[in-house]
């Protein structure tokens, strides 16, 4: 396993574009901390994000993982191109000839994805811990380490998204086209959902139940947007008479669905490599 990771990391780390993107990703990730410094003073109206409670434990776990998950596209580009490059350089063929098995090849890519997702999760965990201790109104251990399932959801979400990218890279062979199809699939899920939900089935909640099984929708269901959960926003909503009873929890069922997608994507990647004449 160490050997496979070492092989894959050398391929990524020696590539300047991937290296810059990886470093850029972590730098931008740490910029989440800068949200703390967002401050507006307009006369008597004072707006200081950090003091609105976004960095309160345990809410911070939800907020930071949600914001951090937007940046996953950076690593997605690296993952798609690491696969597509193997095709265009002819090194996929060469690696096999040099004695890598097809299973090892996919496993080495998958381990890299796990590593990326793992490091991202660890990074967000440590950063949130620091931010929380800096700004949170509550710092009791019991509260600090509650609701950690958001981190697990974040990890699974990244893993699912990256597996999807890997699969597209294996299938399509060209990074630009693979990323393009990812985007088209995203649009397809959204539009077909909109049409089914609002035009055909007249807001029937069953549509949501079905779409919870779609790959991208299931990943986004792992982390629901945290903004309307903020006390200040809630108060505002109640004031205008909208009662939100949104469920912000991480559900085991959503995690399971994404795990199944991960298995499908990784296994199909292997089947494609196995069946294809390279």
């Amino acid at each position: 396993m160490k050997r496979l990771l070492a092989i894959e990391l050398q391929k990524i780390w020696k590539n300047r574009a991937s290296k810059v993107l990886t470093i850029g990703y972590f730098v931008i990730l740490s910029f989440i901390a800068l949200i703390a410094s967002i401050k507006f003073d307009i006369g008597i109206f004072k707006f200081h994000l950090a003091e609105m409670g976004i960095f309160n434990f345990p809410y911070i776990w939800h907020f930071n993982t949600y914001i951090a998950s937007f940046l996953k596209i950076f690593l997605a580009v690296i993952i798609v191109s690491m696969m597509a490059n193997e095709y265009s350089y002819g090194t996929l063929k060469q690696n096999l000839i040099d004695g890598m098995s097809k299973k090892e090849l996919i496993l080495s890519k998958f381990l890299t994805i796990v590593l990326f997702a793992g490091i991202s999760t660890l990074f967000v965990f440590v950063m949130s811990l620091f931010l929380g201790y800096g700004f949170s109104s509550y710092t009791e251990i019991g509260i600090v380490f509650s609701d950690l399932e958001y981190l697990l959801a974040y990890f699974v979400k990244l893993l699912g998204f990256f597996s999807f990218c890997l699969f597209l890279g294996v299938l399509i062979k060209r990074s630009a086209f693979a990323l393009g199809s990812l985007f088209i699939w995203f649009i397809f899920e959204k539009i077909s959902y909109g049409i089914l939900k609002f035009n055909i089935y007249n807001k029937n909640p069953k549509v949501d139940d079905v779409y919870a099984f779609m790959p991208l929708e299931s990943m986004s269901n792992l982390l629901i947007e945290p903004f309307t959960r903020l006390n200040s926003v809630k108060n505002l909503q109640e004031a205008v008479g909208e009662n939100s009873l949104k469920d912000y929890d991480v559900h085991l069922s959503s995690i399971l669905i994404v795990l199944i997608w991960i298995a499908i994507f990784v296994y199909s990647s292997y089947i494609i490599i196995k069946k294809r004449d390279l």
Partner: protein
Amino acid sequence: MENSILSIKNLHKKYGKVHAVNDVSLDIYKGNVYGILGPNGSGKSTTLGIVLNVVNKTSGEYSWFGGKLETHDALKKVGAIIERPNFYPYMSAKENLELVCKIKGVDYKKVDEKLEIVGLIDRKNSKFKTFSLGMKQRLAIASALLNDPEILILDEPTNGLDPQGIHQVRDIIRLIASQGTTILLASHLLDEVEKVCSHVLVLRFGKILYNGKVDEMVSHNAYFELQSNNNQKLIEALKNHPELDNYENNEEKIIAHFKTQVDSAELNGFFFEKGISLNHLVKRKQSLEEQFLTLTNSTETQS
């Protein structure tokens, strides 16, 4: 068989309607230099692709080292380069070879040793993308040699190289062959195979046309060039020779093919008895190139 390195039995590969490899069988034993000869698109690379685990066979069998190892483990004891050199353009020569070391499980100290053999030690820190084609091909050979392979498989190793590059690559191949490494060389260049190989497999449209030793293929069709002061009389006499297959009157010289092996001295005596003194008598072996054209043309006219 103890020394069997690769054994291919009744291999077939179909791409849709195209029968790229049709019933190819081949046995490779330790210490010989084998050639696979055929025009472009005759199934050479496909056959190699199948045994190298990158192309899926349609039917048939192959086994490495007597079938004791899984293909990918067997390939760790094989060195192969196919079609064009495949490396990561953004890595240096050294880094590329170190990556191959990681895959094959070889010590890094082999890197410098093999770069020395192919004469790239001075450029080891240059990025692969800055290399000329000849250098890329030599790096590919260095990479294939990293694990001190039991067999070296080369597919069109001199394809696209300039004469100097061809010369360098051939020298390296000869050096490796002289050290007793088994080599399998696929090429459409006949003199390349003739110069380097001891055994040859001739392919056309995926089918085997000839499978055996190079000398036997060549000596089988020896012919004579004859000339005397009176060629007319010579032809008359030649027609009476019991073993004559056919002859051509090629301006000054007469080319005579015989059904069986005929000795030069014997032939000279035969003419002398008839009162013809020859001023030119040469026994020529058909070059592999002519041989190859005869083989491939005869099937063309058949089909």
